[in-house]
């Protein structure tokens, strides 16, 4: 049980008066935790502890990435169209490969020299015109004579040949109950 306070209004001793004045100077501060700061400090502490290992992993990863890119370049390079200036104009000529995909520099006006390896790699992403589209372009550039000829039939008569009129008449006659 608490002792009753001094209600008599008696004077405090000197040492308590000094303590009282210090207490009066104290102001309540905002409560809470600076979480951002905590997370930053925690991350930094963790990073510092594993710094050596992380540097090794990133270095190896970068090297591996470049090595893989070089391998892909070596594999794909022979398939990339050569970026020669004459390709595109010849491709639309009567004797050219009409509708063939163009080299990358001509296709999209790729601006920078020295991009040939990248251009060669990217050219593999170019859509290839279908045989039908090529044929359409060929016919439009050369005329209807470029239409494929009708393939000759095998010479074997169709299983159900069209009945001739003289065959039809008896059939109709029988169906209707007449004699032809």
């Amino acid at each position: 049980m608490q002792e009753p306070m001094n209600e008599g209004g008696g004077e405090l001793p000197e040492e308590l008066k000094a303590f009282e004045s210090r207490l009066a100077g104290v102001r309540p501060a905002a409560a809470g935790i600076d979480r951002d700061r905590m997370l930053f400090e925690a991350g930094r502490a963790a990073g510092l502890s594993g710094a050596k290992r992380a540097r090794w992993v990133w270095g190896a990863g970068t090297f591996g990435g470049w090595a893989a890119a070089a391998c892909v370049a070596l594999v794909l390079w022979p398939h990339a169209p050569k970026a020669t200036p004459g390709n595109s104009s010849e491709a639309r000529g009567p004797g050219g490969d009409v509708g063939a995909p163009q080299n990358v520099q001509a296709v999209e006006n790729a601006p920078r020299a020295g991009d040939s390896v990248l251009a060669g790699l990217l050219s593999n992403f170019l859509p290839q015109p279908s045989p039908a589209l090529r044929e359409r372009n060929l016919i439009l550039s050369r005329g209807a004579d470029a239409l494929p000829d009708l393939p000759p039939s095998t010479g074997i008569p169709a299983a159900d040949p069209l009945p001739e009129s003289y065959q039809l008449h008896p059939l109709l006659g029988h169906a209707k109950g007449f004699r032809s």
Partner: protein
Amino acid sequence: MTYTHRLRRDGGGQKWSLTLRIGCVAAAGMLGTLLARTACAQTTWPERTGQQPTRVIIPLHPSAPQTPDLQYHLLPRASDMHAGNAALGYAAAVEMIPPDRTAAEADELETLRTEPLADLDEKAAQKILANYDHALRQLRLAARYDYVDWQTDVFNRGLDAPLPSLSFLRQLSNVLTVAIRLDLKHRDFAAAVEKLQTGFALARHTGEGHALIQTLVGAAIAGAMTREVEEWIGIDGSPNLFWPLAYMPRPLLDMPRALAFEKDAAYLSIPELRQMRARPLTVAGWTRFVAGFQSASSGGDVEPPKTYEQQLQATGLALMIYPSAKQYLIERQHLSPEDVDKMPVAEVLGRYFPDSFDASMDRTFRYVNLPPAVALPALRKAERDFGQPGGMYTNLLARIFLPSLDRAIFINANTNRTLDALEAVEGVRAYAAEHHELPANLAALGLPIPNDPMTARPFDYRVENGGVTITSVPLEDPAARDTLIYQLTGP
């Protein structure tokens, strides 16, 4: 390569000695050849390979215009037509083509179409015509329907839409020419002109499709028919076709409709391209566009790529196009470099792609409906510029979809030029019949002779060596491979 009609003389039934018979046959052969090469009714033309000027040599037989002027019609008369869709009739005719066609028959048909009229093997011709009897009757019926609607699904499927059986229609027109030639050999001009009506109507109907290929096949069929008109003109005593030729509609084939379709074929084939114009592009939209692009350009012939492949390809294409796209937006759409840098990559591509595609296509298509004398030189220059590496903002899609148009425009114009030039030829025949001399120039004919559509100027006309040459040299044709010469040889 040329060939000449040669007269065939059958020997009598008298029992001559062997030596005498051999001598007579040899003499008759030499005489026949001499006559054929000099004075007899021959129409000669080179094989039209497109690599050399086309020179058609026709013997000049004066012939006054018919009375009434349009006694002959080269297209079916309205009073002979019936309401209905001709495409259904043609489909039925194709179904009636004999199924047991062999390579030997195809070769024989080619011979019958091209050998000199005097040498036409009538028995072989009649045999083929008998095989095609049902198909030709159906063809005649179909050609007399009053409109055609091929009902190709181009508005949903774009270039992937199946076209009518063009090769079979051409096959039928080839058989029809054999029938016309047989009529001409028998001098049955009324029967020949009825089949010419079928052929020219087939040409016009075939050309009324949405795909430019159809127009070109229509032009090829019309070319086969005009060749028979040339043969007709070369026959002594043949009726004059000046007014029937003048009455033929020009242009004969409806090309603007097909050109409009070809211009927007990519939009019809790739729905994502249409959507790209309507709203900002996202990464997913770009991936769908590339997949649709691939599908459209492959014609559905390849297996659709897997999702990761689509994403990889979309990324690769984006990488490839992005620098040009940025440059395009800055220079052509006048956006600041800072604004373009702030844009997501997909948005840059979405703003660039349809705009640049239209720009690439428009630089060629803007000329196509002009008169050929203006359009052809402009088209040739535009296509040369288009083919230049580093050509301004040439769009990848346009590279694949833009057809070579100058040849198509030329082929269509050539159909009209041939009709116009033949009209001039018939004008000369009419003048010669009336005045018993050759006209000094085309103006002397007193008939409405059209200008050469290739130059918008009168045909070049010369009187030389007792005959006449009517020449058309297209503008900017240094190799003269597109030159057409009608040479009327005097008696």
